[in-house]
């Protein structure tokens, strides 16, 4: 369990990192918190020729308020910060609520939001939570031949970012630089819960929900995302729609939970078969949506 040989570059700036990623002669991977990549290296499941270490790039580690009152999380913001930063707790309490479910404190103090999203693991908490919040990702690369300027940037809805298990829209020369979380609307409540074999394990199933109620207590917007509910981190658009236009009564929530359980596409593995996962999705959706609706009311 020792990694194969690789070249190591400690990038001092974003441009420096992009330059290293742009060099076509060497297969290069960005090293953020290393919580997934380093085990893959040690198991020799990944063998990049070069690692570009992002840990020295200060500009990627910032948490900022956006003009619209949302949040911009630099790619190198650690999970622990989600748990502890009062600004994050105020602007996006769902992030603060879900962060303690991400692995263990040691991993959270090292692992990064950008790394977790770029890894595109359907079993990870953060992608599902960010999908629920309607987040967007900022992506940068060095200009390719013929393009003007030194850097090219683009923004993508997170929903369009995840293409398959461990497979995202990132090109080899691109770097995920930030995640933008829109401001929360009045009358909105959020919640997260998961069932894992042990505290800190990948969840057998997890659910993040955001529910907005109008002044009469009728749901006018709902978003539900699943952890380990499909081949990618997945937003359950159809199922969430069943709640819109209704009061979140136990019956209505139950119907939404059933819709989630029916339409999700969980994989079977040694820890849970498909039927058990669907059952957990149903149970957790009912619990989480009720809790989110309760928070929306207050």
């Amino acid at each position, binding site marked *: *369990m*020792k*990694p*194969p*040989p690789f070249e190591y570059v400690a990038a001092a700036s974003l441009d420096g990192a992009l330059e290293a990623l742009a060099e076509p002669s060497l297969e290069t991977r960005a090293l953020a918190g290393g919580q997934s990549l380093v085990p893959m290296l040690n*198991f*020799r499941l990944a063998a990049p020729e070069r690692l570009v270490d992002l840990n020295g790039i200060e500009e990627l580690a910032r948490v900022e308020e956006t003009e619209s009152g949302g949040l911009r999380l630099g790619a190198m913001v650690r999970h622990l910060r989600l748990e502890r930063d009062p600004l994050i707790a105020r602007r996006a309490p769902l992030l603060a609520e879900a962060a303690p479910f991400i692995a263990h404190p040691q991993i959270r103090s090292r692992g990064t939001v950008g790394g977790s999203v770029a890894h595109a693991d359907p079993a990870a908490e953060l992608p599902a939570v960010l999908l629920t919040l309607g987040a967007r990702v900022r992506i940068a690369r060095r200009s390719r031949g013929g393009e003007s300027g030194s850097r090219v940037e683009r923004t993508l809805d997170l929903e369009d970012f995840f293409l398959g298990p461990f497979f995202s829209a990132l090109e080899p020369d691109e770097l995920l630089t930030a995640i933008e979380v829109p401001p929360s609307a009045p009358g909105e409540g959020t919640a997260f819960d998961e*069932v894992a*074999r*042990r*505290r*800190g*394990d*990948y969840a*057998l199933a997890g659910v993040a929900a955001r529910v907005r109620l109008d002044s009469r207590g009728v749901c006018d917007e709902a978003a539900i995302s699943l952890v380990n509910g499909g081949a990618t981190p997945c937003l359950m658009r159809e199922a969430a729609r069943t709640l819109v236009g209704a009061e979140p009564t136990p019956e209505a929530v139950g119907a939404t939970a059933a819709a989630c359980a029916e339409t999700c596409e969980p994989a079977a593995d*040694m*820890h*849970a*078969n498909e*039927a*058990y996962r669907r*059952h*957990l999705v149903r*149970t*957790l959706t009912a619990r989480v949506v009720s809790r989110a609706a309760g928070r929306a009311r207050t």
Partner: protein
Amino acid sequence: MSRAGGTWVGARVPRNEDARLLTGRAQFVEDVEPPGALHAAFVRSDLPAGRLRGLDVERARAHPGVHAVFTAADLGPLLRPGAVLVPPPPLEGLVFHARTALPLVRERIRHQGEALAMIVADSRYVAEDAAQLVEADIEPLDPVVDLGRALDEDAPRIHDDLPSNLAAYVRQAKGDYAAARARADLVLERRFSYDRGIGGAIENRAVVAEWDARADRLQVWDTTQAPIPVRNVVAAALGLSESQVRFIAPFVGGGFGPKIMFYAEEILVPWASIRLGRPVKWVEDRYENFFATTQERGQLHEAEISVTREGRILGVRDIFIHDSGAYDPYGLTIPINTQCTLLGPYRVPNYESEFRVAFTNKPIVTPVRGAGRQHGVFIMERLLDLAARGLGLDPVEIRRRNVIGSDEFPYNHEIMYQDFAPLRYDSGSYEESLEEAVRLVGHETFPRERERAQPDGRVVGVGVVNYVEGTGIGPYEGARITVEPGGTVRLATGVGTQGQGHFTSFAQIVADAIGVQPSDVRVVTGDTSDFHWGTGTFASRGAVVAGNAIHAAAQSVREKILRHAAKALEVDPEDLELADGAARVRGAPDLSVDLGALALSANPLRGAVEPGTEPGLEATSYFGPPYGTTANGTHAVVVAVDPETAMVEILRYIVVHDCGTVINPTIVEGQIHGGVAAGIGNAFYEELVFDEFGGTSNASFMDYLLPTSTDVPPIETAHLETPSTLNPLGTKGVGEGGAIPVAAAFAQAVEDALADIAPGLEILDIPLSPGRLFELLRGAS
């Protein structure tokens, strides 16, 4: 801090070894890095069954930094099957086919992880790079994976020279079960499966060998639980005198059974050091550990109990298959433990038990903490629970009606145990233990508690189960105690230590005998240059067998001290007492002489040592018990089950246990806590998952789930002390007891919690993962 009453045995003495362990100064094998050391890695088979047609190591040999690549063809006389470490007991009608592995595969691959080649390089990194360059041409064979079909006539044969995959067959019986069954009011028959997993020590195996050509000596650091037997095997295999080979088992990060085995690496690493003239180091990594280190696994039981309508056991019949893996170097220890431990603390007048051991294409099975006893306890306790349910009795009540009374010892179960001696219980406290656990868990009031609505929708249940554990078996251990002129006391014994607290509990025995502080006793374990007779640390025997050898040696040293002191002080030995590191005249404490001064005068540089005596204050003694002593206990557990998610949380865990004389309650509780943690892992978390091709699907701690500190509740412990009648200290073993009955208690508690929701639900398979409980709940509704 001399204690009132003057006895250290029984006191909560802080551990002598903790300062070194907690400040990172304790030496582990990984810490040993001789100058110029080379590093080894093994190329292992990914396939569980195959024929090695070719092995091309030329690219690996040519890789920069590689010093050698060894294959079976290079081993010469070392290429022979390993020893059978434990022969089968002399039982009538026994079948036993011994099959052991070659150090490196020559042709046939029988389990995943069998070593094909050994690479020695400048670093482990380079060695692993080179391992990827080895090209193995393997013809895959159909693997035998499913234990239930391993003995089928058409199953692929794992050892071609045998007519089937049957490794062994044993039948033991007492009374007449068929007759008992004929007069029973209730007969219940069920199929059970009980699976176990890896030892899971925090430190994997490691071997560092340094051949000193000038001194003509080999020094080996090894994580073994049995340094002396391993030294002897290695010396013989390499053609060296035992005195040329020194094995050191320093601090070892957990043994749990697998490190008692003899492994090929223990001979290949020293051999490579001699051959290359350089120190060679090999540290097993966590991935390798899942294949290259032995483990425990499953048994399939068809068991039956016959009872009267009052719930008295008339008899039990149990027929089971035991998975041995690809080879059977540890004989029949595990299934015989199962067979014997099943009987527990109960009167079972008629018993019929037979088992077959099957070879499979899986890693080798040898004892892991509990060593098959869990399986037996689970079967018996489940049968009692089912019988209680069938008769409308409380589970505690059926146990009360069947436990062996305190006036019935010694109790003879009339079958043979793993130590080749009849299964006899020397002493015990079965009724007291059960009643104490019932009292502590509040069993009498518990049904009402269950009716109390849990605010979170969960339901609670309670389980209470018993066990008896055969511990402290022979053959023997020894100890040498020396009082040094500085007043320090040196104790050397042959057993290795893997966290059991030997440096303290052994010191307490010596301190009591010769009047010193436990912290004055310097304990050396697991170094063959300090003590070279002994077998090892296994079967919950350290405190029993080594402990009583130490006690005997300490008494001999005490006599020598008294004799020398009586002479020096010109008094009668009977007028002396030993305390505070000195011999003193009773009632005249000013008349005293330090032990250090006595040690000096007992080893004079001039003058004469009295004819017929030995110099110094030193004694060596050995202890071998006639047969194993039996510890016992009762576990009670309270669980909360979420019927919607099938998740189970343990709310309370109570252990009432009796290991005879308790040397150090803190250390005993530590053993129990660790054992219960292992048991919780076995009951709910740990499972080795094999795919249809025989590969292990979860060879990492990401998917092989050990319970963590947040999964193990606080454990409430009560000590009962019924001394063993088989040794002077009265000690019994406690290393494994904590782990043995956990799954049985867990199953009873989960069934109890679900009694209203799923009344017919029966838990017959362990581990009980939430996925399995979900299926049971689905089946019941």
